[in-house]
């Protein structure tokens, strides 16, 4: 029946039952096909279409911010997102909290031999959607395949580039005694979404990851003209780690008010069950901001007006403290330290 096959025909990728093979990373035709039928189909744009070893980008007119992030989350699909959307959000947020407008992303994929192409297509599709929503373009990428057993399905590394407005400098060392500390919403959602999935915890309401691109929110915050010192996204290590970093970098102390820190009841319940503290749990769609006390109210109002900042709150203040301690007034009425978490409580969370 070979007569009915059109000349030049190549069998398309089997996106239903196919699996990643070593040849998909080998630099030959199979790899070209994978890129064309899977990656370019979802992510294609004029920069990728240049088809060269590197993308040529137009001048951005000013300072650039570059951030990079590796993603090894397990499970790859979790309530509220997957590794694809996470890989976009994580890097977009790193660039956005520096005050920059994220423009471009590059992505590196490490695939394990045997990984279902259907899952890969779903993940790349979700990356494309996340990038579209965030208004960033994926301009370069690379794919490698490792033998079965040498990877865990799929790892993604993304690098983001953004343009920093003239005159703006946000930095972890700019917090000053008297400044206000703000959070854009409830804490611990992402980490507990992953944990509840891993531990098969059945809750009435499933915990959804907060994975989201924050560049819209940061733009709204910058537009207020408030005196912002810095923004950070409290990912691994949670709010506790981020605040300790800020305290050390700025050489200050921070006093928190536990009652003001928003936590979803289901996240609190899950933490309780597993003996975890929401302060240590990762977020993927939240930011911490430090600003001049006089601008705090205005900034919180602007955050609350944005869909990703509805539960924004002022949670504490920066104080003078040579020991750089983060302390918290507990809801109970006592005071305690808020420390970095020792060891690995929740591995492979992002």
């Amino acid at each position, binding site marked *: 029946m070979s007569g009915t096959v059109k000349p030049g025909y190549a069998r398309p990728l089997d996106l239903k039952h196919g699996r990643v093979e070593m040849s998909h990373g080998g630099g030959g035709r199979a790899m070209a096909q994978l890129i064309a039928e899977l990656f370019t189909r979802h992510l294609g744009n004029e920069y990728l279409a240049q088809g060269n070893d590197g993308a040529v980008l137009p001048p951005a007119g000013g300072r650039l911010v570059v951030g990079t992030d590796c993603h090894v989350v397990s499970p790859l699909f979790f309530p509220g997102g997957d590794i694809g959307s996470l890989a976009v959000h994580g890097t977009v947020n790193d660039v956005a909290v520096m005050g920059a407008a994220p423009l471009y992303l590059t992505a590196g994929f490490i695939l394990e031999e045997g990984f279902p192409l259907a899952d890969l297509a779903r993940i790349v599709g979700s990356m494309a959607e996340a990038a579209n929503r965030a208004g960033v373009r994926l301009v370069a990428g690379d794919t490698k395949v490792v033998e079965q057993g040498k990877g865990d399905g799929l790892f993604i590394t993304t690098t983001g580039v953004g343009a920093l407005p003239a005159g703006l400098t946000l930095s972890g060392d700019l917090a000053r005694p008297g400044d206000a500390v703000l959070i854009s919403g409830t804490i611990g959602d992402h980490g507990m979404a992953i944990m509840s999935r891993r*531990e098969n915890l059945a809750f009435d309401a499933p915990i959804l990851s907060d994975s989201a691109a924050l560049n819209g929110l940061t733009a709204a915050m910058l537009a207020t003209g408030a005196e912002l010192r810095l923004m950070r996204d409290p990912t691994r290590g949670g709010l506790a780690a981020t605040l300790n970093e800020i305290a050390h970098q700025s050489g200050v102390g921070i006093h928190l008010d536990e*009652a003001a820190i928003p936590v979803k*009841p289901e996240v*609190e*319940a899950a933490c*309780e069950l*597993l*003996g975890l*503290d929401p302060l240590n749990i990762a977020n993927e769609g939240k930011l911490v901001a430090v600003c001049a006390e006089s601008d705090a109210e205005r900034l919180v109002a602007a955050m609350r007006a944005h869909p990703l900042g509805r539960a924004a709150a002022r949670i504490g203040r920066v104080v003078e403290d040579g*020991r750089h*301690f983060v*302390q918290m007034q*507990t*809801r*109970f*009425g*006592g*005071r*305690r*330290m808020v*420390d970095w978490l*020792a*060891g690995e*409580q929740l591995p492979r969370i992002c």
Partner: protein
Amino acid sequence: MRYVDEFRDGEVAQGIARAIAAEARPERRYNFMEFCGGHTHAISRYGVPDLLPENVRMIHGPGCPVCVLPIGRIDLAIRLALTHGVVLCTYADTLRVPASGGLSLMRARSRGGDIRMVYAVTDALKIARENPHKQVVFFAIGFETTTPPTAVAIRQACAEGLGNFSVLCCHVLTPPAIMSILESPEVRTLGSVPLDGFIGPAHVSTIIGSRPYAFFAEEYRKPVVIAGFEPLDVMQAILMLTRQVNAGRAEVENEFTRAVTPDGNAKAQALVAGVFELRRSFEWRGLGEVPYSALKIRAAYAEFDAEKRFELDYTPVSDNKACECGAILRGVKRPTDCKLFGTVCTPETPMGSCMVSSEGACAAHYTYGRHKESEAAR
């Protein structure tokens, strides 16, 4: 209102705090030991000491399962993983406890040991089912609360004929440990540990009931108040202890009536008695050899006893000389009395077991309470 919040209400806490302040007589001191690591953690995490008058002091007790594991026991687990090549299943907290030769289970893992973190013994059973060609050992630690699930797992393995599963049993008992503290020279004769009463364990007491503590109240004249793990429970228990001391009473009182009965959980007790029996003696970190203070697997289930299956001999190993865990677990010293605290020894680089588990006195103080030291020093 959310369930957990009811027990953490700041206003109620202030009310109890005022009652304690009114009850505590200024001319005397009140020293209470919370036996349980769960209480130690709650006290530190919620800042309970800030709500107590200066003359009411809490002493941390030995009820942290990870802390009381002696080095020799961790060594056995490491030997199982590295020499016998078993899949060793353990709770996260035990992974970082320092063992002999600069090792820990974590380090043994990076040297090729197949050591897996589990949340429950049922996870270990699952691993055994999925890996029929490997020996799978569950490193069982903990007080009376964690013992029934281990008993269930052993019976389950027996029923399924799961021949590749066994348990390294290090389950210990609460009453003999309290007894050992009350019998220690520091409490009995030297008086260097003034002890006016105990907060009794929450979860342990749901299993064993409140009756076992009557002996301590009567024989040693020490009041015991059994309390839940919520900070308000702890505050209420401190108030009840203070009242007993003032009235010259030494009774067992139960603050945790929402879960604890005098006789405890008879079903769980029967289950445990069917699978385990008392060890003649067991080494505890800090307390040394304590007679009849731990459990071993009964002969009927010997094939699931890792100590028998792999013919393990126990070798005691002494602690790092500078580490004061032993004295801290007996209430003789405080974490800050240790020269290594916060310098050489931190939660990232623990030198002793008390710095490992969040229920350990050193870790709790380092993580939640160390702002107080430098404030006092300033």
